[in-house]
């Protein structure tokens, strides 16, 4: 404890009322400020897309990263794959089979601090009925009352049978899909410890 903190100890009642930076749990994901985007490559041309509707539950205390929790649920029908034709196409059985599998989920099982503001989040990703282990680097920036969480990872679409049949030809649509997520979470006053 610093001298400064020692002096504050007598006033610990006050300390409990004011959420100190080290003891804030960020757990309110601000969906309108967040985004979930991806880049696929068609004939080596990067094509950007995004999911417009998703939900996320996060509980992140920068002082206790290992205890952090994170969940993401994505509405597959909300995809914007770059064009109307593409949106219709990726809803079909060969791609996401959106009718049978309307949502995709990621549930984090561990969060490791990598030093600085970098973390590694590992968990299970379920898309189209297939669940696989997934790990992604994440950076967290604290800005005012929010935690800004950014990450980028590459998944292989074949791992989840996304685009099989005639689309399995990676020379047209590459196997690697880059995912970029940007989540903004604030601390709910009630949950601040």
């Amino acid at each position: 404890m610093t001298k400064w903190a020692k002096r504050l100890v007598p006033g610990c009642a006050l300390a409990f009322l004011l959420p100190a930076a080290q003891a804030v749990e960020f757990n309110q994901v601000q969906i309108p400020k967040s985004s979930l985007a991806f880049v696929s490559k068609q004939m080596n041309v990067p094509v950007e897309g995004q999911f417009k509707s998703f939900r996320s539950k996060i509980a992140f205390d920068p002082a206790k990263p290992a205890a952090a929790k994170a969940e993401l649920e994505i509405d597959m029908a909300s995809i914007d794959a770059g064009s109307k034709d593409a949106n219709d196409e990726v809803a079909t059985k060969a791609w996401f089979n959106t009718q049978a599998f309307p949502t995709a989920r990621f549930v984090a099982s561990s969060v490791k601090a990598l030093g600085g503001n970098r973390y590694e989040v590992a968990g299970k990703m379920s898309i189209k009925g297939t669940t696989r282990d997934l790990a992604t680097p994440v950076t967290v920036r604290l800005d005012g009352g929010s935690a800004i969480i950014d990450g980028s990872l590459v998944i292989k679409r074949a791992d989840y049978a996304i685009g099989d049949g005639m689309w399995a030809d990676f020379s047209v649509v590459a196997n690697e899909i880059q995912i970029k997520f940007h989540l903004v979470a604030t601390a709910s006053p009630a949950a601040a410890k």
Partner: protein
Amino acid sequence: MRINPDHPHRVDNGYTGIAISLHWLIALAIVGSFSLGLYMHELPLSPQKLKLYSWHKWAGVTIFLFVALRLGWRLFHRPPELPATMPDWQRKVAAATHVLLYVLMFAVPLSGWLMSSAKGFQTVWFGVLPLPDFLNKSETLGDTLQQVHMLLNFSMAALVLAHVGAALKHYFIDRDDILRRMIPLLGKRQTSGVVK
């Protein structure tokens, strides 16, 4: 051999081999990409369709570059004189058609490239060299440019048909050297002059 009085060093009665090669190379490429464009547009979405779209774009960029080369060559090599028998109005129509064809040979690939940008698909030449996107993605602009690209193409097709018709008329009816000098294989009608 007819000598151009203004440029006595220039052989003035034939297209150069470069001009002829570029004419036919570009003509073939344009007819091919035009047909490909019509065909691919009708296909249902498939990997094959995406491939054909890319090939069409690569061909368009390539044609654009060859046309630039051709125009550069043309600026320093005047085409041969037209036969003296050709009436003035025909000379004017021929000259105007050629200018318009040059304009369209640039405008068609340009409109395709801009359309692709507006539709949110960058053009990556042969899958290797990314061209810049001068337009941001916009559905309405993309649709407008698609109309423009089609209109320019059909205008070019109409002009090419007239152009081919004229060439055939020169060959079969006027029986002059106009088609022959663009197709040296046909040989020369008159024995004067040397094809360069």
